[in-house]
Protein backbone atom coordinates (compact mmCIF):
# COMPACT_ATOMS: atom_id res chain seq x y z
CA UNK A 1 0.00 0.00 0.00
CA UNK A 2 2.77 2.35 1.04
CA UNK A 3 4.88 1.22 -1.93
CA UNK A 4 2.03 1.97 -4.35
CA UNK A 5 1.46 5.40 -2.87
CA UNK A 6 5.18 6.22 -3.12
CA UNK A 7 5.28 5.19 -6.77
CA UNK A 8 2.29 7.38 -7.50
CA UNK A 9 4.00 10.31 -5.81
CA UNK A 10 7.16 9.82 -7.92
CA UNK A 11 5.09 9.61 -11.11
CA UNK A 12 3.16 12.72 -10.13
CA UNK A 13 6.34 14.70 -9.38
CA UNK A 14 7.95 13.59 -12.65
CA UNK A 15 4.96 14.07 -14.92
CA UNK A 16 3.54 17.28 -13.42
CA UNK A 17 6.10 19.73 -14.88
CA UNK A 18 5.83 18.06 -18.27
CA UNK A 19 2.07 18.41 -18.17
CA UNK A 20 2.43 22.03 -17.13
CA UNK A 21 4.65 22.69 -20.16
CA UNK A 22 2.33 20.79 -22.44
CA UNK A 23 -0.73 22.77 -21.44
CA UNK A 24 0.43 26.10 -22.93
CA UNK A 25 1.78 24.21 -25.93
CA UNK A 26 -1.58 22.52 -26.50
CA UNK A 27 -3.38 25.81 -25.97
CA UNK A 28 -1.11 27.48 -28.55
CA UNK A 29 -1.62 24.55 -30.93
CA UNK A 30 -5.39 24.76 -30.44
CA UNK A 31 -5.23 28.51 -30.98
CA UNK A 32 -3.28 28.08 -34.24
CA UNK A 33 -5.81 25.51 -35.44
CA UNK A 34 -8.68 27.87 -34.60
CA UNK A 35 -6.85 30.75 -36.33
CA UNK A 36 -6.46 28.67 -39.48
CA UNK A 37 -10.14 27.75 -39.29
CA UNK A 38 -10.90 31.47 -39.10
CA UNK A 39 -12.38 31.01 -35.62
CA UNK A 40 -10.64 34.15 -34.38
CA UNK A 41 -12.59 34.63 -31.15
CA UNK A 42 -11.85 31.05 -30.15
CA UNK A 43 -8.21 31.45 -31.18
CA UNK A 44 -7.88 34.64 -29.14
CA UNK A 45 -9.18 32.76 -26.10
CA UNK A 46 -6.63 29.97 -26.50
CA UNK A 47 -3.71 32.38 -26.96
CA UNK A 48 -4.78 34.54 -24.02
CA UNK A 49 -5.01 31.51 -21.74
CA UNK A 50 -1.67 30.21 -23.01
CA UNK A 51 0.01 33.55 -22.29
CA UNK A 52 -1.41 33.51 -18.80
CA UNK A 53 0.18 30.13 -18.17
CA UNK A 54 3.56 30.77 -19.88
CA UNK A 55 6.48 31.80 -17.75
CA UNK A 56 8.01 35.23 -18.24
CA UNK A 57 11.29 33.72 -19.31
CA UNK A 58 9.74 31.57 -22.01
CA UNK A 59 10.42 34.17 -24.66
CA UNK A 60 10.10 31.92 -27.71
CA UNK A 61 6.62 30.58 -26.92
CA UNK A 62 5.39 33.93 -25.64
CA UNK A 63 6.58 35.50 -28.89
CA UNK A 64 4.75 32.85 -30.94
CA UNK A 65 1.55 33.19 -28.94
CA UNK A 66 1.62 36.97 -29.03
CA UNK A 67 2.28 37.04 -32.77
CA UNK A 68 -0.73 34.78 -33.47
CA UNK A 69 -2.80 36.78 -31.01
CA UNK A 70 -1.89 40.02 -32.79
CA UNK A 71 -2.80 38.48 -36.15
CA UNK A 72 -6.07 37.28 -34.67
CA UNK A 73 -6.86 40.79 -33.46
CA UNK A 74 -6.16 42.13 -36.97
CA UNK A 75 -8.88 39.83 -38.30
CA UNK A 76 -11.15 40.71 -35.38
CA UNK A 77 -10.91 44.31 -36.64
CA UNK A 78 -9.11 45.33 -33.43
CA UNK A 79 -6.33 47.30 -35.09
CA UNK A 80 -5.20 49.21 -32.00
CA UNK A 81 -5.14 46.05 -29.94
CA UNK A 82 -3.17 44.28 -32.66
CA UNK A 83 -0.68 47.18 -32.81
CA UNK A 84 -0.25 47.10 -29.04
CA UNK A 85 0.23 43.32 -29.04
CA UNK A 86 2.82 43.51 -31.81
CA UNK A 87 4.69 46.21 -29.86
CA UNK A 88 4.79 43.78 -26.95
CA UNK A 89 6.28 41.24 -29.36
CA UNK A 90 8.94 43.71 -30.46
CA UNK A 91 9.84 44.60 -26.89
CA UNK A 92 9.94 40.95 -25.97
CA UNK A 93 12.12 39.96 -28.93
CA UNK A 94 13.48 42.97 -30.79
CA UNK A 95 15.20 40.79 -33.37
CA UNK A 96 12.00 38.87 -34.13
CA UNK A 97 10.65 39.18 -37.66
CA UNK A 98 7.17 37.96 -38.63
CA UNK A 99 7.06 35.02 -41.03
CA UNK A 100 5.71 36.38 -44.28
CA UNK A 101 4.96 32.87 -45.57
CA UNK A 102 2.51 32.30 -42.72
CA UNK A 103 0.97 35.70 -42.22
CA UNK A 104 -0.67 37.72 -45.00
CA UNK A 105 0.28 41.32 -45.83
CA UNK A 106 -2.56 42.85 -43.80
CA UNK A 107 -0.98 41.28 -40.72
CA UNK A 108 2.64 41.89 -41.60
CA UNK A 109 1.96 45.52 -42.37
CA UNK A 110 0.53 46.06 -38.90
CA UNK A 111 3.47 44.21 -37.38
CA UNK A 112 5.96 46.29 -39.37
CA UNK A 113 4.26 49.49 -38.29
CA UNK A 114 4.43 48.37 -34.68
CA UNK A 115 8.10 47.41 -35.10
CA UNK A 116 8.95 50.78 -36.58
CA UNK A 117 7.20 52.50 -33.69
CA UNK A 118 9.05 50.45 -31.09
CA UNK A 119 12.77 51.02 -31.00
CA UNK A 120 14.32 48.25 -28.98
CA UNK A 121 17.54 46.28 -28.84
CA UNK A 122 18.35 42.71 -28.00
CA UNK A 123 21.86 41.56 -27.16
CA UNK A 124 23.64 38.28 -27.68
CA UNK A 125 26.58 37.71 -25.39
CA UNK A 126 28.27 34.91 -23.54
CA UNK A 127 27.40 34.63 -19.88
CA UNK A 128 31.02 34.53 -18.82
CA UNK A 129 33.89 36.06 -20.69
CA UNK A 130 37.58 36.13 -19.83
CA UNK A 131 40.20 38.28 -21.48
CA UNK A 132 43.45 40.14 -20.91
CA UNK A 133 43.43 43.87 -21.44
CA UNK A 134 45.14 44.82 -24.61
CA UNK A 135 44.56 41.39 -26.07
CA UNK A 136 40.84 40.76 -26.04
CA UNK A 137 37.66 42.26 -24.66
CA UNK A 138 34.12 41.75 -23.53
CA UNK A 139 32.01 41.40 -26.68
CA UNK A 140 28.32 41.64 -27.36
CA UNK A 141 26.32 41.73 -30.56
CA UNK A 142 23.31 44.02 -30.51
CA UNK A 143 20.25 43.48 -32.69
CA UNK A 144 17.85 46.31 -33.36
CA UNK A 145 14.12 46.09 -33.91
CA UNK A 146 14.27 48.99 -36.35
CA UNK A 147 16.64 51.71 -37.40
CA UNK A 148 17.21 54.04 -34.47
CA UNK A 149 19.88 55.63 -32.33
CA UNK A 150 21.31 53.79 -29.37
CA UNK A 151 23.83 54.47 -26.63
CA UNK A 152 25.72 51.61 -25.04
CA UNK A 153 27.39 52.31 -21.72
CA UNK A 154 29.25 50.45 -19.06
CA UNK A 155 27.84 51.79 -15.83
CA UNK A 156 28.44 51.38 -12.16
CA UNK A 157 25.71 49.84 -10.12
CA UNK A 158 24.40 53.38 -9.40
CA UNK A 159 23.98 53.91 -13.17
CA UNK A 160 26.85 56.42 -13.38
CA UNK A 161 28.77 56.00 -16.62
CA UNK A 162 32.15 54.32 -16.61
CA UNK A 163 32.64 54.17 -20.35
CA UNK A 164 30.51 54.79 -23.41
CA UNK A 165 31.06 51.83 -25.67
CA UNK A 166 28.93 52.95 -28.58
CA UNK A 167 26.70 55.84 -29.49
CA UNK A 168 25.12 55.86 -32.89
CA UNK A 169 22.60 54.23 -35.15
CA UNK A 170 21.61 50.61 -35.27
CA UNK A 171 19.75 48.99 -38.13
CA UNK A 172 20.16 45.27 -38.09
CA UNK A 173 23.05 44.61 -35.75
CA UNK A 174 26.05 46.31 -34.16
CA UNK A 175 29.01 44.56 -32.54
CA UNK A 176 30.48 46.13 -29.42
CA UNK A 177 33.68 45.41 -27.55
CA UNK A 178 34.75 46.61 -24.12
CA UNK A 179 38.49 46.43 -23.43
CA UNK A 180 38.21 46.40 -19.64
CA UNK A 181 39.11 50.08 -19.23
CA UNK A 182 37.27 53.17 -18.10
CA UNK A 183 37.13 56.39 -20.08
CA UNK A 184 40.48 57.53 -18.64
CA UNK A 185 42.16 54.36 -19.91
CA UNK A 186 42.59 52.77 -16.48
CA UNK A 187 41.57 49.20 -15.94
CA UNK A 188 38.34 49.22 -13.94
CA UNK A 189 38.54 47.79 -10.43
CA UNK A 190 36.70 44.63 -9.57
CA UNK A 191 33.06 45.16 -8.72
CA UNK A 192 29.47 45.16 -9.93
CA UNK A 193 28.69 47.05 -13.08
CA UNK A 194 26.00 46.98 -15.70
CA UNK A 195 25.88 47.10 -19.44
CA UNK A 196 23.16 49.60 -20.31
CA UNK A 197 21.83 49.71 -23.87
CA UNK A 198 19.53 52.67 -24.35
CA UNK A 199 17.26 52.96 -27.38
CA UNK A 200 16.69 56.64 -28.15
CA UNK A 201 13.85 58.39 -29.86
CA UNK A 202 14.34 61.11 -32.43
CA UNK A 203 14.81 63.65 -29.64
CA UNK A 204 17.59 61.65 -28.04
CA UNK A 205 15.49 60.55 -25.10
CA UNK A 206 15.85 57.01 -23.93
CA UNK A 207 12.64 55.15 -24.60
CA UNK A 208 13.93 51.77 -23.59
CA UNK A 209 16.93 50.61 -21.61
CA UNK A 210 18.18 47.06 -21.62
CA UNK A 211 20.45 46.36 -18.67
CA UNK A 212 22.74 43.43 -18.08
CA UNK A 213 24.21 43.24 -14.59
CA UNK A 214 27.93 42.48 -14.77
CA UNK A 215 30.23 41.12 -12.16
CA UNK A 216 33.75 42.19 -13.13
CA UNK A 217 36.83 40.65 -11.55
CA UNK A 218 40.18 42.21 -12.54
CA UNK A 219 43.48 40.66 -11.54
CA UNK A 220 46.61 42.73 -12.03
CA UNK A 221 50.04 41.29 -12.64
CA UNK A 222 52.80 41.83 -10.07
CA UNK A 223 55.40 44.42 -10.93
CA UNK A 224 59.11 43.62 -10.86
CA UNK A 225 61.68 45.48 -8.73
CA UNK A 226 63.92 48.02 -10.44
CA UNK A 227 67.58 47.01 -10.61
CA UNK A 228 69.73 48.74 -7.99
CA UNK A 229 72.17 51.41 -9.13
CA UNK A 230 75.67 49.99 -9.63
CA UNK A 231 77.29 52.37 -7.15
CA UNK A 232 79.20 49.59 -5.42
CA UNK A 233 80.63 48.38 -8.70
CA UNK A 234 81.83 51.77 -9.94
CA UNK A 235 85.55 52.34 -10.19
CA UNK A 236 87.15 55.54 -8.90
CA UNK A 237 87.11 58.15 -11.63
CA UNK A 238 89.72 60.46 -10.14
CA UNK A 239 92.88 59.87 -8.25
CA UNK A 240 95.03 62.18 -6.23
CA UNK A 241 98.65 61.31 -6.80
CA UNK A 242 101.28 62.27 -4.30
CA UNK A 243 103.97 63.08 -6.77
CA UNK A 244 104.43 60.27 -9.28
CA UNK A 245 107.07 58.52 -7.29
CA UNK A 246 107.28 55.70 -9.77
CA UNK A 247 107.91 58.14 -12.59
CA UNK A 248 110.62 60.02 -10.81
CA UNK A 249 112.42 57.16 -9.11
CA UNK A 250 111.95 54.74 -11.98
CA UNK A 251 113.05 57.23 -14.61
CA UNK A 252 116.10 58.34 -12.67
CA UNK A 253 117.12 54.81 -11.74
CA UNK A 254 116.87 53.48 -15.26
CA UNK A 255 118.47 56.63 -16.67
CA UNK A 256 121.38 56.45 -14.29
CA UNK A 257 121.75 52.73 -14.87
CA UNK A 258 121.87 53.15 -18.63
CA UNK A 259 124.36 55.97 -18.27
CA UNK A 260 126.65 54.58 -15.60
CA UNK A 261 126.50 50.80 -15.69
CA UNK A 262 127.96 50.26 -19.17
CA UNK A 263 131.32 51.34 -17.82
CA UNK A 264 131.10 48.54 -15.28
CA UNK A 265 129.80 45.99 -17.72
CA UNK A 266 132.42 46.77 -20.33
CA UNK A 267 135.24 48.36 -18.34
CA UNK A 268 137.89 47.80 -20.93
CA UNK A 269 135.99 49.04 -23.93
CA UNK A 270 135.81 52.47 -25.42
CA UNK A 271 132.08 53.07 -25.38
CA UNK A 272 130.12 55.51 -27.47
CA UNK A 273 128.07 58.37 -26.15
CA UNK A 274 124.79 56.72 -27.04
CA UNK A 275 124.25 55.62 -23.45
CA UNK A 276 124.28 59.21 -22.27
CA UNK A 277 121.69 60.17 -24.80
CA UNK A 278 119.35 57.29 -23.96
CA UNK A 279 119.95 57.55 -20.21
CA UNK A 280 119.33 61.29 -20.33
CA UNK A 281 116.11 60.90 -22.26
CA UNK A 282 114.86 58.32 -19.75
CA UNK A 283 115.72 60.52 -16.78
CA UNK A 284 114.10 63.57 -18.33
CA UNK A 285 111.00 61.52 -19.19
CA UNK A 286 110.87 60.41 -15.55
CA UNK A 287 110.99 63.99 -14.34
CA UNK A 288 108.36 65.05 -16.84
CA UNK A 289 106.17 62.14 -15.74
CA UNK A 290 106.68 63.14 -12.13
CA UNK A 291 105.66 66.73 -12.79
CA UNK A 292 102.65 65.92 -14.94
CA UNK A 293 101.29 63.20 -12.71
CA UNK A 294 100.95 65.34 -9.60
CA UNK A 295 97.61 66.52 -8.35
CA UNK A 296 94.07 65.44 -9.03
CA UNK A 297 93.72 63.44 -12.22
CA UNK A 298 90.85 61.77 -13.94
CA UNK A 299 91.13 58.12 -14.88
CA UNK A 300 89.72 57.82 -18.42
CA UNK A 301 89.75 54.01 -18.39
CA UNK A 302 87.67 53.90 -15.20
CA UNK A 303 85.33 56.59 -16.50
CA UNK A 304 84.75 54.51 -19.63
CA UNK A 305 84.07 51.40 -17.54
CA UNK A 306 81.72 53.35 -15.25
CA UNK A 307 79.89 54.88 -18.21
CA UNK A 308 79.39 51.40 -19.58
CA UNK A 309 78.09 50.15 -16.22
CA UNK A 310 75.78 53.14 -15.83
CA UNK A 311 74.53 52.74 -19.38
CA UNK A 312 73.76 49.08 -18.83
CA UNK A 313 72.01 49.91 -15.56
CA UNK A 314 69.93 52.67 -17.18
CA UNK A 315 68.93 50.32 -19.97
CA UNK A 316 67.93 47.61 -17.46
CA UNK A 317 66.06 50.15 -15.31
CA UNK A 318 64.20 51.60 -18.29
CA UNK A 319 63.32 48.11 -19.50
CA UNK A 320 62.02 47.15 -16.04
CA UNK A 321 60.07 50.40 -15.75
CA UNK A 322 58.52 49.85 -19.17
CA UNK A 323 57.64 46.28 -18.25
CA UNK A 324 56.11 47.46 -14.95
CA UNK A 325 54.13 50.12 -16.76
CA UNK A 326 52.85 47.46 -19.11
CA UNK A 327 51.96 45.20 -16.19
CA UNK A 328 50.29 48.03 -14.28
CA UNK A 329 48.19 48.93 -17.26
CA UNK A 330 47.23 45.33 -17.99
CA UNK A 331 45.00 42.92 -16.12
CA UNK A 332 43.20 39.67 -16.51
CA UNK A 333 39.49 40.35 -16.55
CA UNK A 334 36.56 38.03 -15.91
CA UNK A 335 33.07 39.31 -16.68
CA UNK A 336 30.01 37.36 -15.54
CA UNK A 337 26.72 38.45 -16.99
CA UNK A 338 23.48 38.31 -15.05
CA UNK A 339 19.89 38.14 -16.26
CA UNK A 340 18.90 41.16 -18.36
CA UNK A 341 16.28 43.64 -17.38
CA UNK A 342 14.40 45.85 -19.83
CA UNK A 343 12.85 49.15 -18.76
CA UNK A 344 10.39 50.78 -21.14
CA UNK A 345 9.33 54.35 -20.86
CA UNK A 346 5.68 54.54 -20.01
CA UNK A 347 3.51 55.11 -23.08
CA UNK A 348 6.22 54.53 -25.62
Amino acid at each position, binding site marked *: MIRTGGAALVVALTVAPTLQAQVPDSLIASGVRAYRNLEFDVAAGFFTRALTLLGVADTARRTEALTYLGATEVYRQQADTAHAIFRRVVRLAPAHRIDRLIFPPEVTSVFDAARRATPAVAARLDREQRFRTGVGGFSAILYGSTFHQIRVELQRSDASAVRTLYAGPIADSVPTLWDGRATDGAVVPSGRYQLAIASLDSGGTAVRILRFPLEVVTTRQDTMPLPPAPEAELLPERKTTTGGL*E*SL*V*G*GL*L*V*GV*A*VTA*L*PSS*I*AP*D*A*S*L*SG*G*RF*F*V*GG*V*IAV*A*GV*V*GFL*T*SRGDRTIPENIAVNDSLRGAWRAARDAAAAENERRRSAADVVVRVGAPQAIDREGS
Partner: protein
Amino acid sequence: MTRNTAALLLFALTAAARPAWGQSGAVHLGAGQVRAEQVFSVGDTVARSGFAWSLDGAFGIGPATLAVRYLEGSLASDDTATETDLVEGEVILWFAPVRWAAVGAGPHVRAYVEEGGTERWTMWEVRARGTAQLTGAVTAYGELWTVLGSGLPVTGSLDRGLGLEGGLRIAFGRLPFSGQLRYRVNQLAVADGGRLETVEQLGIAVGIGRR
Protein backbone atom coordinates in the same frame (compact mmCIF):
# COMPACT_ATOMS: atom_id res chain seq x y z
CA MET B 1 117.62 42.80 -45.46
CA THR B 2 117.95 39.19 -46.49
CA ARG B 3 115.22 36.78 -47.52
CA ASN B 4 115.39 35.25 -44.04
CA THR B 5 114.72 38.61 -42.47
CA ALA B 6 111.75 39.24 -44.72
CA ALA B 7 110.29 35.83 -43.86
CA LEU B 8 110.77 36.48 -40.17
CA LEU B 9 109.13 39.89 -40.49
CA LEU B 10 106.15 38.45 -42.32
CA PHE B 11 105.75 35.72 -39.72
CA ALA B 12 105.98 38.13 -36.83
CA LEU B 13 103.49 40.60 -38.29
CA THR B 14 101.04 37.79 -38.95
CA ALA B 15 101.39 36.56 -35.40
CA ALA B 16 100.95 40.01 -33.89
CA ALA B 17 97.80 40.53 -35.90
CA ARG B 18 96.26 37.47 -34.26
CA PRO B 19 95.83 38.32 -30.58
CA ALA B 20 94.13 34.97 -30.01
CA TRP B 21 97.63 33.58 -29.69
CA GLY B 22 97.99 35.23 -26.31
CA GLN B 23 96.90 37.97 -24.07
CA SER B 24 99.53 40.33 -25.37
CA GLY B 25 101.65 40.58 -28.44
CA ALA B 26 103.97 43.00 -30.09
CA VAL B 27 106.18 43.14 -33.14
CA HIS B 28 108.71 45.90 -33.66
CA LEU B 29 110.94 46.71 -36.58
CA GLY B 30 114.00 48.62 -35.56
CA ALA B 31 117.05 50.29 -36.97
CA GLY B 32 120.15 51.67 -35.39
CA GLN B 33 123.86 52.00 -35.02
CA VAL B 34 125.99 49.04 -33.94
CA ARG B 35 129.52 49.20 -32.75
CA ALA B 36 131.59 46.08 -32.09
CA GLU B 37 135.00 46.13 -30.52
CA GLN B 38 137.23 43.10 -30.36
CA VAL B 39 140.46 43.02 -28.37
CA PHE B 40 142.68 40.09 -29.21
CA SER B 41 145.21 38.44 -26.95
CA VAL B 42 148.11 39.89 -28.83
CA GLY B 43 146.87 43.33 -28.02
CA ASP B 44 145.28 44.15 -31.32
CA THR B 45 141.98 45.95 -31.24
CA VAL B 46 139.53 45.86 -34.07
CA ALA B 47 136.61 48.24 -33.97
CA ARG B 48 133.76 47.96 -36.41
CA SER B 49 130.59 49.99 -36.73
CA GLY B 50 127.67 50.17 -39.01
CA PHE B 51 123.94 50.15 -39.51
CA ALA B 52 121.69 47.26 -38.55
CA TRP B 53 118.06 46.26 -38.83
CA SER B 54 116.30 44.43 -36.08
CA LEU B 55 113.05 42.62 -35.62
CA ASP B 56 111.57 42.00 -32.19
CA GLY B 57 108.54 39.99 -31.25
CA ALA B 58 106.95 39.31 -27.90
CA PHE B 59 103.96 37.10 -27.20
CA GLY B 60 102.62 36.79 -23.70
CA ILE B 61 100.14 34.61 -21.91
CA GLY B 62 99.53 35.72 -18.36
CA PRO B 63 102.82 36.39 -16.59
CA ALA B 64 104.88 34.51 -19.18
CA THR B 65 106.23 36.16 -22.29
CA LEU B 66 108.32 34.72 -25.04
CA ALA B 67 110.53 37.36 -26.61
CA VAL B 68 112.48 36.82 -29.80
CA ARG B 69 114.93 39.16 -31.49
CA TYR B 70 116.75 39.13 -34.73
CA LEU B 71 119.35 41.65 -35.83
CA GLU B 72 121.34 41.90 -39.00
CA GLY B 73 123.77 44.53 -40.05
CA SER B 74 126.88 45.27 -41.95
CA LEU B 75 129.85 46.58 -40.01
CA ALA B 76 132.85 48.30 -41.45
CA SER B 77 136.19 48.32 -39.77
CA ASP B 78 137.27 51.71 -38.54
CA ASP B 79 140.80 51.11 -39.78
CA THR B 80 140.78 48.83 -42.78
CA ALA B 81 137.32 49.53 -44.19
CA THR B 82 136.69 45.83 -44.59
CA GLU B 83 133.10 44.84 -44.11
CA THR B 84 131.75 42.16 -41.81
CA ASP B 85 128.17 41.08 -41.49
CA LEU B 86 126.79 40.85 -37.98
CA VAL B 87 123.84 38.59 -37.27
CA GLU B 88 122.29 38.15 -33.85
CA GLY B 89 119.38 36.20 -32.60
CA GLU B 90 117.95 35.55 -29.18
CA VAL B 91 115.01 33.80 -27.62
CA ILE B 92 114.22 34.74 -24.03
CA LEU B 93 111.41 33.33 -21.98
CA TRP B 94 110.32 35.93 -19.44
CA PHE B 95 108.32 35.52 -16.28
CA ALA B 96 106.88 38.63 -14.63
CA PRO B 97 105.53 37.94 -11.14
CA VAL B 98 104.82 41.65 -10.71
CA ARG B 99 104.11 44.43 -13.17
CA TRP B 100 107.43 46.17 -12.69
CA ALA B 101 109.88 43.28 -12.64
CA ALA B 102 110.61 40.16 -14.66
CA VAL B 103 113.24 37.50 -14.96
CA GLY B 104 114.09 35.58 -18.09
CA ALA B 105 116.47 33.12 -19.61
CA GLY B 106 117.36 31.85 -23.03
CA PRO B 107 119.96 31.56 -25.77
CA HIS B 108 121.65 34.45 -27.51
CA VAL B 109 123.63 33.78 -30.65
CA ARG B 110 125.94 36.22 -32.40
CA ALA B 111 127.75 35.56 -35.65
CA TYR B 112 130.29 37.53 -37.62
CA VAL B 113 130.11 36.52 -41.24
CA GLU B 114 133.17 37.16 -43.36
CA GLU B 115 134.45 35.79 -46.60
CA GLY B 116 136.83 33.54 -44.71
CA GLY B 117 134.13 31.98 -42.59
CA THR B 118 131.64 32.57 -39.82
CA GLU B 119 132.54 33.18 -36.21
CA ARG B 120 129.65 32.19 -33.98
CA TRP B 121 129.19 33.01 -30.30
CA THR B 122 126.51 31.20 -28.36
CA MET B 123 125.53 32.44 -24.93
CA TRP B 124 122.99 31.12 -22.46
CA GLU B 125 121.84 34.09 -20.50
CA VAL B 126 119.83 34.86 -17.41
CA ARG B 127 118.25 38.27 -17.37
CA ALA B 128 116.45 40.59 -15.01
CA ARG B 129 114.29 43.49 -16.06
CA GLY B 130 112.76 46.40 -14.22
CA THR B 131 109.98 48.57 -15.63
CA ALA B 132 108.73 51.97 -14.56
CA GLN B 133 105.65 53.74 -15.86
CA LEU B 134 106.79 57.31 -16.42
CA THR B 135 103.56 58.68 -17.88
CA GLY B 136 100.39 57.08 -19.17
CA ALA B 137 102.07 56.41 -22.51
CA VAL B 138 105.76 56.18 -21.67
CA THR B 139 107.46 53.29 -19.95
CA ALA B 140 111.14 53.00 -19.07
CA TYR B 141 112.85 49.68 -18.73
CA GLY B 142 116.28 48.38 -17.89
CA GLU B 143 117.66 44.89 -18.34
CA LEU B 144 120.77 43.31 -16.92
CA TRP B 145 122.04 39.91 -17.79
CA THR B 146 124.85 37.55 -17.28
CA VAL B 147 126.03 34.62 -19.32
CA LEU B 148 125.82 31.26 -17.58
CA GLY B 149 126.96 29.06 -20.44
CA SER B 150 128.56 29.63 -23.77
CA GLY B 151 129.82 28.18 -26.98
CA LEU B 152 132.89 30.09 -28.09
CA PRO B 153 134.62 30.26 -31.44
CA VAL B 154 137.98 30.65 -29.72
CA THR B 155 139.97 28.51 -27.37
CA GLY B 156 139.49 29.08 -23.70
CA SER B 157 136.52 29.43 -21.46
CA LEU B 158 134.31 32.40 -20.88
CA ASP B 159 135.56 34.42 -17.98
CA ARG B 160 132.82 37.00 -17.88
CA GLY B 161 129.73 37.80 -19.86
CA LEU B 162 127.52 40.73 -18.93
CA GLY B 163 124.98 42.85 -20.69
CA LEU B 164 122.67 45.78 -20.24
CA GLU B 165 119.80 47.22 -22.17
CA GLY B 166 117.77 50.27 -21.28
CA GLY B 167 115.23 52.28 -23.07
CA LEU B 168 111.82 53.80 -23.41
CA ARG B 169 108.61 52.40 -24.84
CA ILE B 170 106.02 54.86 -26.09
CA ALA B 171 102.42 53.96 -26.80
CA PHE B 172 100.79 56.07 -29.49
CA GLY B 173 97.52 57.00 -27.80
CA ARG B 174 94.69 54.56 -28.36
CA LEU B 175 96.27 53.19 -31.51
CA PRO B 176 97.81 49.72 -31.33
CA PHE B 177 101.20 51.07 -32.37
CA SER B 178 104.17 51.75 -30.17
CA GLY B 179 107.76 52.86 -30.46
CA GLN B 180 111.03 52.22 -28.65
CA LEU B 181 114.32 53.97 -28.00
CA ARG B 182 116.99 51.65 -26.66
CA TYR B 183 120.63 51.29 -25.83
CA ARG B 184 122.38 47.97 -25.36
CA VAL B 185 125.87 46.96 -24.43
CA ASN B 186 127.25 43.46 -24.04
CA GLN B 187 130.74 42.30 -23.25
CA LEU B 188 132.24 38.84 -23.26
CA ALA B 189 135.67 38.18 -21.81
CA VAL B 190 137.44 34.94 -22.59
CA ALA B 191 139.69 33.65 -19.82
CA ASP B 192 143.37 34.46 -19.77
CA GLY B 193 142.92 37.47 -21.99
CA GLY B 194 142.11 35.33 -24.97
CA ARG B 195 139.49 37.72 -26.31
CA LEU B 196 137.42 40.71 -25.25
CA GLU B 197 134.27 41.14 -27.21
CA THR B 198 132.09 44.23 -26.80
CA VAL B 199 128.99 45.10 -28.82
CA GLU B 200 127.07 48.34 -28.40
CA GLN B 201 123.75 49.07 -30.04
CA LEU B 202 121.71 52.25 -30.19
CA GLY B 203 118.45 52.23 -32.05
CA ILE B 204 114.81 52.96 -32.40
CA ALA B 205 111.92 50.70 -33.32
CA VAL B 206 108.26 51.01 -34.20
CA GLY B 207 105.65 48.33 -34.40
CA ILE B 208 102.30 46.89 -33.61
CA GLY B 209 101.18 45.97 -30.13
CA ARG B 210 102.55 46.66 -26.71
CA ARG B 211 104.68 44.67 -24.36
